[in-house]
C-alpha cells in the first residue's frame, strides 16, 4: 500500500512543475490567455518534445503506455499552474477511445503523440452527459458510413483536426446498444464547426453534421462501454488537475491571509478565517485521497465506475467550494483578473461540467450502486 509517486512519476511531476513555472507563471497569465491558439500551438510543440503527448498512448498504438498514475503526476501540474492546453482531451481521452482501433487509428495516434494532430471527442448532444443519450445517426453505405446529427458540446474541440463522433447505428436515444464511434476530419464535407471559448480559457465547439463521411472506430454498435471506459480515464485525469488547482488555491490563500492586514492584524489571525482555511485544506485532502485511490485502482484495472463517479462528484464539490472560499477570503481583489484565485474558481466550475456535472455523476453513482 503505497501512496507516494515512484521515481519516474516524480520526475514527470517535476518536469511539468518546471514547465508550468516557466510558461504559465501567475504574473504572465493574462498574456498567455490573450495569445489564444497561437500560444497553445507553441507550447504544444514543446510538450511533444518533452514526450508528454505520447505518454498516455498505449504501447500497442506506438505510445509509451503511461497509466492513470503517470497522467495524474502530469495533470496535477496542469492544475497547479492552470495550464489551458487540452492534454486530457487530446492525449488521454482520444487515445483511450481509439486504442486498438485498427491501422487508421494507430497511424493517427502516432501523429497525436508527435503533436501534429489533435483529436477531440464529440459525444454530447442536447440531452446531456449520458453517453447513450444520442440521436446522431450513422447510415451504412457499403462499408462506408455517413453521419447526420448535432453535437452540442465538444470539449476542447475548437482547434481539433479530427473529431471522434458517437452516432447511432441502431436503437434510440437512451439505449446503450447501437452506439458507434466514428472518426471525422475537420475538413469533411457536411461538417459545420461552431467555436466557443469558456471562462477558463479553454476552446470548445459544437458540431453540425449532414451526411458526413465517417470512419468507424472499434466494433459497430458496441461503443458505449468503450466510451464509458475512456471517459473514466479522462475524468480521473481531470480530477488530478482539479486537485492540483485546489492545492494551489489554498497555498495562495494561505500566503494572502498571513500577510494581508486588517484592523491592525493579519487576517489569518482571525479564528473564523483560520477555520475556513482549515476547511479548505480538509477538502483538498478529501479530493487528493479520493483521486489517488481512483487513479491507483484504475491503473491496476480494479476501479469500479461507481468509485470514479463518486470521486467526480466529491472532487467537484470540494474544488468549487475551495475556489469560492479562496476568492471570498481574498476579498475584492480575489475577484480581479490579476490574481490567480478567480482563475482557479473558473477552472473548477468548468471542470465540474467536463464529462458530466456533479448531479449527473451522483445519479450515475446511485444507479451503479443500486
Amino acid at each position, binding site marked *: 500500500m503505497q501512496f507516494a509517486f515512484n521515481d519516474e512519476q516524480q520526475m514527470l511531476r517535476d518536469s511539468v512543475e518546471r514547465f508550468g513555472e516557466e510558461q504559465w507563471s501567475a504574473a504572465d497569465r*493574462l498574456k498567455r490567455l490573450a495569445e489564444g491558439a497561437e500560444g497553445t500551438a507553441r507550447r504544444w510543440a514543446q510538450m511533444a518534445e518533452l514526450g508528454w503527448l505520447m505518454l498516455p498512448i498505449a504501447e500497442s498504438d506506438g505510445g509509451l503506455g503511461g497509466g492513470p498514475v503517470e497522467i495524474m503526476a502530469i495533470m496535477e501540474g496542469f492544475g497547479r499552474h492552470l495550464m489551458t492546453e487540452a492534454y486530457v482531451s487530446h492525449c488521454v481521452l482520444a487515445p483511450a477511445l481509439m486504442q486498438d482501433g485498427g491501422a487508421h487509428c494507430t497511424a493517427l495516434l502516432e501523429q497525436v503523440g508527435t503533436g501534429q494532430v489533435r483529436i477531440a471527442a464529440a459525444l*454530447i448532444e*442536447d*440531452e*446531456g*452527459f*449520458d453517453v*447513450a*443519450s444520442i440521436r446522431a445517426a450513422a447510415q451504412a453505405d457499403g462499408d462506408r458510413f455517413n453521419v447526420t446529427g448535432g453535437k*452540442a*458540446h465538444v*470539449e476542447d474541440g*475548437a482547434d481539433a483536426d479530427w473529431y471522434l463522433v458517437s452516432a447511432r447505428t441502431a436503437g434510440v*436515444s*437512451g439505449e446503450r446498444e447501437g452506439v458507434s464511434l466514428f472518426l471525422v476530419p475537420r475538413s469533411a464535407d457536411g461538417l459545420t464547426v*461552431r*467555436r*466557443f*471559448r*469558456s*471562462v477558463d480559457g*479553454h*476552446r*470548445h465547439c*459544437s458540431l453540425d453534421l449532414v451526411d458526413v463521411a465517417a470512419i468507424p472506430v472499434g466494433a459497430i454498435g458496441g461503443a458505449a462501454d468503450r466510451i464509458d471506459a475512456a471517459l473514466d480515464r479522462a475524468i480521473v485525469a481531470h480530477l488530478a488537475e482539479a486537485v492540483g488547482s485546489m492545492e494551489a488555491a489554498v497555498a495562495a490563500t494561505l500566503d494572502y491571509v498571513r500577510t494581508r*492586514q*486588517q*484592523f491592525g492584524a493579519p487576517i489569518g489571525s*482571525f479564528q*473564523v*478565517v483560520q477555520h475556513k482555511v482549515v476547511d479548505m485544506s480538509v477538502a483538498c485532502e478529501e479530493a487528493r485521497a479520493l483521486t489517488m485511490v481512483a487513479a491507483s485502482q484504475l491503473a491496476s484495472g480494479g476501479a469500479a465506475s461507481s468509485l470514479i463517479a463518486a470521486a467526480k462528484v466529491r472532487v467537484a464539490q470540494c474544488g468549487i467550494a475551495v475556489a*469560492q472560499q479562496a*476568492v*471570498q477570503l481574498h*476579498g*475584492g481583489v*480575489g*475577484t*480581479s*483578473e*490579476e490574481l490567480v484565485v*478567480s*482563475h482557479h*474558481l*473558473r477552472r473548477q*466550475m*468548468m471542470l465540474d*461540467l*467536463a464529462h458530466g*456535472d456533479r*448531479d449527473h455523476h*451522483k*445519479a450515475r453513482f446511485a444507479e451503479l450502486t443500486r
Partner: protein
Amino acid sequence: MNLDLAPEDRAFQQEVRAFFADSIPEEWKTTVRAGLRLSPENLVAYQRRLADRGWGAPTWPKEYGGTGWTPQQLHIFWSEASAADAPAQFHQGLELIGPIIFTYGSQAQKDFYLPRIISGEDWWCQGYSEPGAGSDLAALRTRATRDGDDYVINGHKMWTSYAHVADRMFVLARTSTEGRRQQGISLMLVDMDTPGIRISPIHTLDEKHHTNEVFLDDVRIPAANLVGEEGMGWNYGKVLLDRERMVAAATAMFLPQTLRAVREAATRRRTTGGLLIDKPEFRAKLAQVEIEALAVQAMVLRLMADAAAGADSGPRGSMVKLRWSELTQQATALWVEALGPKAQHFAALDEGAAPPQDMPLALQGALYARVTTIYGGSSEIQRNIIARRALGL
C-alpha cells in the same frame, strides 16, 4: 399582526403595476435576472422614465424631490418592479451621496446636486475604498490639503464602481493626521473632469467592466465642495447605515427574478429522462432555493414593517444582506447548472456564431455573484457586526 394591504395601498399597487406593465424592454430582462447591471445608457433611460413619472427617488422625502413614500409603499413599488423584471436603480447617487447631501450638505449643494441625481443627469461614483482600506476605512490614506479657496487631493482609490461613466465622485480624504484614525477624514464632491484624475479599469472574473482604480494627482476642487464640516466625513457615512437596510431590502426583493430565470432555463433544458424541471432531484434543489428566498422575502417584509413603525430593526438589515447574497450565489449557480454542457460556451470565437440563449449572462451573473458576499461589508464583517451589536459578544 396584520399584513393585509389597506385600500389606499391596493390602489397604489394597481398604479405601480400599470406603470411597469410596459416600461421594461424584453432585451433588458435576462441581464436583470442575472443580477447584472444594465448598460449605463439603459440605466439612465430607466431613471429618466421614473423621474418623469415623479418616482425618481422613491426613498427620499418630498422636500428634496423624492416620493415621500411610506415603507409599505416602497415595498409595493419594489415588489412590482421585481415582478416586472425591472432593474434596481443605480444606488450610488440615490442611496449614498444624495441622502448625505440632503442631511449635511449646504443649501447650494442641495439645490444643485439633488435634482440632477433624480433626473439621471449626474452619475455618481464612490471614492471610499483604497488599497489596504477596504472594510477598514480608518486606514484611509488619500489626503486633501487646503490651499486658499481650494482643496488639493492626492491619493489612490480602489473598487470605484462605474467611475468610467460617472460625472461626479464623492471622496473620503484625510484633512488631518491628528487624533484617532477615524478623525480628520473629510467628505468632498469631485467633478470627474477635474484635471489630475486618472481612471484605470479593474478587470474582474465576470469579464464585465464595472469597477476601477482612480488615481488622484493634485486634483484641485473648490473648498465649497466640502460636505458639512472638515474632519467629520467619517460621521456622515453613518447616516447611510440606516439606509443600508433599505438597500439590502430592495436588493433582496429582486431575488425572485433570478429564480424565474432558473425555472425558465430548466423548462427549456431537455435531458434523458425528460425536461430538467420535471426531474425530482432538480425540483428539490430549486424548491430549496425558492423556499429560502421566500424566507428572505418574509424577513424583508418584517424589516419594512419595522421601518413603518419607526422601530429599531437591530441587525436585521445585516441579516438580509447575509442571506440574499448567499442565495443569489446559489440561484445563479443553479441557473448555470440548468444550462448544462452549453455553460461552457461563454463566447463565440468566430463571427456570426452566438452562444446559447441565456449565455453568457447566466454565467456572468454566477461569477459576479461571488462579489456580493464581499462588497458592502463582507459576510464575515456582517457576522462580526451582528455578534457585537445584537448579541453583545
